[in-house]
Each structure stands twice: as C-alpha cells, then as structure tokens.
C-alpha cells in the first residue's frame, strides 16, 4: 500500500527533477548521482538506526573509508574498478565491525560516542599525514582511474556511470526491502524497541546488532567508492560531520524503518540544498547562503521532531506471508467475541 503523503511528495520530487532535466542535462545527471549516493548512505543508516536502533553518528567516516580504499587501490595500484568497489565495501565493513565489537554490548550512548569519534578521526588521520603518502594528505588523492574508460565520449561515460550508480541504489533498496520485510525485520525492530525483551524471547541481539553495523558500513563504503569514481579526486575535508548530519535528517524526515520514506527524505534534503544554491544567484540574502542552507535543514529537523516524529512516510508492519494467514483465519475465528467476554477488550 502506498502512503498518500508519500505518493504526492514523490510525484512533486519527480516533477522537480524532470524540470531540471528539461533545463540542463548534465546538471540533472549530477543531481541524480547525488541522489543515488546519498540514498545508499541513508538506507544504510536506516538499517542500523531505523530497524536495529543503533545510533551511528559517524556515517561519514565509513563513507570515507570506502572512498579512500577504492581511490587508493585504483590510483596507486591500478586495481580494476569493480574490485575497488568490493574492496571498499569490505574495508568499511571491517571498520564497522571493529567499532561494533566492543561497543554494541555496552549502553546505547557508548556506540553513539564512539561512532562520532571514529567519524572525525578518520578525516583527521587522512588529513594529517604527509602529502607524499599514497592518499596525499591534505592535498587529497589524485589519479583515480576513470571507470568505463572504453567509452571515449566523456558525456556518454558520465551517463553510464550515473546509470551504474542508480543500479547500485536499486540493489541497496531491494536488499533493505527484503531484510525489512522478513522475519529478520521483526527481530531487528524488536531489538530497537526493547532489547531485554528481545533477548528474553531468545534473540541473540549482540550478533544481530554487530551484523547490522557491519553490513550498514559495507553499504556506506560502497557509496564512498561510488563517490571516489565520480569525482576521480578525494579530499579529506569533503568528509565533514555535516554529511552525517544530512544523512540523519534524510532518515528522520523520510520515516524511520521505511525505505521508501528514506528515499523520499533523501530527495527532499538534496533538492532543498540544490534549490537554495540556485536561489542564491537570484535572491539577495542578508547572510551567507551556506549557513542559510544549514539553518533551513536544521529548522526542518526540529519541526519534524516536534510535529511529525514518525516522518513523512510512517513505519509499516513487516510484510511477510504471515499476514495472509491472519486475513484468512481471523474472520472465522473471531466469533468467540460474541460469546461475551471479561470486558477487557475496551481500552
């Protein structure tokens, strides 16, 4: 079932993108790439936070690990593009597991703190190494080999690459939908809602949380690799905490534990960013436009947390064939209600 608000907003978003496309094709390609990149990252946070309730405040760090793994392998070692993508996901997953192992067993806030720290630490490490290191320190990483270099026309090459990014976005979306609409989805939500109760019905919550962070980090790493091969250049200061913040906003305004909602949230945040960027050329603002963007997004999140904490597209029950059993049996079985009851059914 499609949520009405979600559908209407989805159409509006699609309309705006189509309008962009009519005006400027390469600008639109760029927009589509960013949508795919951020949607993969936001979906990975949805797995961790929306489903499993794990507060990962260092998302950008895992994206950076993926980006730099792919970039260094390509630029310094000439590793083929597809292998770089896989290596990026594995490297980010390893860092995710490394952080999850000691923290996931502890209280929730420890995970939040360690991820904030790791997110910034990765950027600072990348930045404060000599410029002659393979990743170039503060000068950044150059020389990433362009993928699809057998396509000679650069415009066509961009189309192919953006197309691949969209395919990987769909892959991520389908993966999340499968996980979310399976018995696993229920277990993750049970951990999010009440971990002790989840343990008491036999769920090995530690393992589930560890894997959620590991797999979520793998997806973030994949997004990072896509970023690296799009720009063919990486700078540590691209991976600021602001990126993590934006991804959180996407998940919160879109709707936690709702993948379609998260994609919608991604589109809205990105479009706000783009539209304010365009607007600044036409409207004279009394303040620095970049601050204005941050303020706008900040205001948005406050409004959502206050008035619509469930997000634009609220969470839905986990869809499995079990619902069919209920639909078939409940109408027949529910007769007992008529036999007169203790009176507990009224709230």
């Amino acid at each position, binding site marked *: 079932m499609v949520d009405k608000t979600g559908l209407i907003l989805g159409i509006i978003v699609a309309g705006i993108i189509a309008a962009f496309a009519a005006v400027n094709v390469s600008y639109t390609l760029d927009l589509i790439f960013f949508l795919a990149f951020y949607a993969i990252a936001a979906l990975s946070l949805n797995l961790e936070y929306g489903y499993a309730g794990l507060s990962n405040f260092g998302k950008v760090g895992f994206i950076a690990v993926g980006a730099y793994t792919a970039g260094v392998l390509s630029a310094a070692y000439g590793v083929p593009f597809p292998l770089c993508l896989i290596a990026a996901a594995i490297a980010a997953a390893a860092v995710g597991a490394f952080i999850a192992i000691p923290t996931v067993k502890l209280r929730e806030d420890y995970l939040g703190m360690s991820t904030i720290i790791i997110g910034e630490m990765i950027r600072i490490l990348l930045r404060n190494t000599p410029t002659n290191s393979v990743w170039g320190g503060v000068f950044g990483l150059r020389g990433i080999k362009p993928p699809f270099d057998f396509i000679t026309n650069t415009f066509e090459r961009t189309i192919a690459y953006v197309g691949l990014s969209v395919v990987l976005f769909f892959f991520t979306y389908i993966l999340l939908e499968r996980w979310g609409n*399976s018995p696993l989805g229920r277990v993750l939500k049970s951990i999010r809602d009440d971990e002790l*109760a989840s*343990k008491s019905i036999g*769920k090995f919550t530690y393992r589930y949380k560890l894997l959620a962070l590991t797999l979520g980090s793998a997806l973030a790493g994949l997004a990072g690799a896509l970023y690296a091969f799009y720009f063919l250049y990486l700078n540590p200061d691209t991976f600021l905490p602001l990126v993590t913040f934006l991804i959180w906003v996407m998940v919160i305004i879109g709707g936690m534990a709702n993948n379609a909602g998260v994609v919608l949230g991604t589109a809205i945040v990105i479009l706000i960013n783009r539209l304010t960027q365009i607007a600044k050329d036409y409207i004279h603002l009394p303040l620095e436009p970049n601050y204005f963007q941050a303020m706008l997004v900040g205001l948005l999140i406050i409004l959502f947390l206050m008035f619509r904490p469930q997000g634009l597209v609220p969470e839905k*029950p986990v869809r499995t*064939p079990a619902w069919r059993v209920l639909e078939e049996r409940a109408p027949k079985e529910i007769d007992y209600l008529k036999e007169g009851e203790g009176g507990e059914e*009224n709230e």
Partner: protein
Amino acid sequence: MSEDYILKVEHVRKTFGGIVALDDVVMGVRRGTMTALIGPNGSGKTTLFNVIAGVYKPDRGKVYFDGHDITGMPPEKIYHLGLVRTFQIPRMFKGMTVYENVLTAARNNPGESYAKSLIRSIWKRAELGIANKAVDTMKLLKILHIAKNLSSAISGGQMKLVELARGLMSDPKMLLLDEPAAGVNPTLAHEIFKFLRHLRDERGMSMLIIEHRLDILFDYVDYVYVMHRGRIVAEGTPEEVSENPVVVEIYLGEA
C-alpha cells in the same frame, strides 16, 4: 530428588549496593506443577525471577534448570533451553503490531538470518507454520481481535496477554510469570489461571508464578513459596501456607 525438580535455586544471594534483595534463597519447582511465589511488595520476587532468567548474576549461589547449570547464563540462551519468562511491567515491541509481537517470539525461524531472509522460499513454509501457531495462541488468549493494533496502543491487561502469548510461542518447558493477572478484572484473571492450568494438565508445562491476588491464585497452584525481605520464610500447599502464622503475620504487618 533433583530429578523431579525442573528448577532448583540454591543459596542465591543478590545485593544492590547496600540492599540485600535476595538472601540465601533455596527453592525449587517440581516438574509439571504450578508453583507460586508470593510475598509483600519489595520482598525480592521479581529480583529472583531476574536472577533465574539471566538478567542478573547472583553474588552467590546456583540456579539449575532441567539438568543445566544456568547460573549467570544470558537470557537468550536460557530461552533456548526451554525456560521463558514474562515481565511484571509488560515490555512490548511498541513499534510493532500485536501480531508481529507474537510472531517474533517463535523459535527457530530460518528467515531471521541475514542471509536466509533474502530468499523467501527458504523461510516461507516455516513462517506460515508460525503464523498459524500465532493465530491459535492469540485465539486461545482472546487477543485475536487486536492482532493488527499497534502493541503500544492496547490496554495494560491486553499487554499482559501479549506477554503470555509471546511466552507460549516457543512451547517452553517452563514459564516464569510475573503477575500474569495484574491489572485485569477478576473474571479474566480466573480465565487466565484456568488457561495456565490447562497448559499444565495438557502439555505438562511447569510454572513459577508471582501473583498478589492470593484469593484467585490459591485456587489453582500446587505449591507456594513465601518470600519476605529477600528470604523464603514459608512454603507448602496453599492450605498449609494460608494457615501458617508466619505468613499471616507478614501479610497483616504489611497492611
């Protein structure tokens, strides 16, 4: 002797800072019985449940379940041995419906693995079986009509029933029930206890039940332990216990 006891608690002590919540507790539950644990508020009943179910490690003493030493074992492992508990204050998975709460409590659903969940054909059959069982259980407990409600949006009494339904989904050997009839009207309370008696008689399930409403409780249980200030101060059949002057004094003292 230990053979016909499914649960044995031996010399368990548990302190919280300066508070001695459990002090040398020795008790047991015979296989296939409904055993009660009573005592005034704050006497340590819930703490004993938490020690048995693996939430707290005892400072001293041992807990045995069905031939296994489960002292300090984590709750999820104890569950898989066949010992399932419910909570005094219901702990719902509040973002999920009643139905999903019950479904989640099934044992060994192959679709709960990250890899297998991706291929529906692997887990579909098991899921359908679990779904039928969940409907059966909700029907027995008369919560089928609220199956689609969000579990945070039902009454406290209904939450107690959802707790019980979740507990039953794994066909446990033994249930630890912390005030299963608290907050429900007397008619429903009797129905709950009749249902528990049915589980004992038909499925041979063992139970340890904390309950405040002795009038209802004593009609159903086989054996009673009385707790006071962290110690077991009396035990026996409901008749013996209700005539025990120590017990009468404790309950009079409380009022």
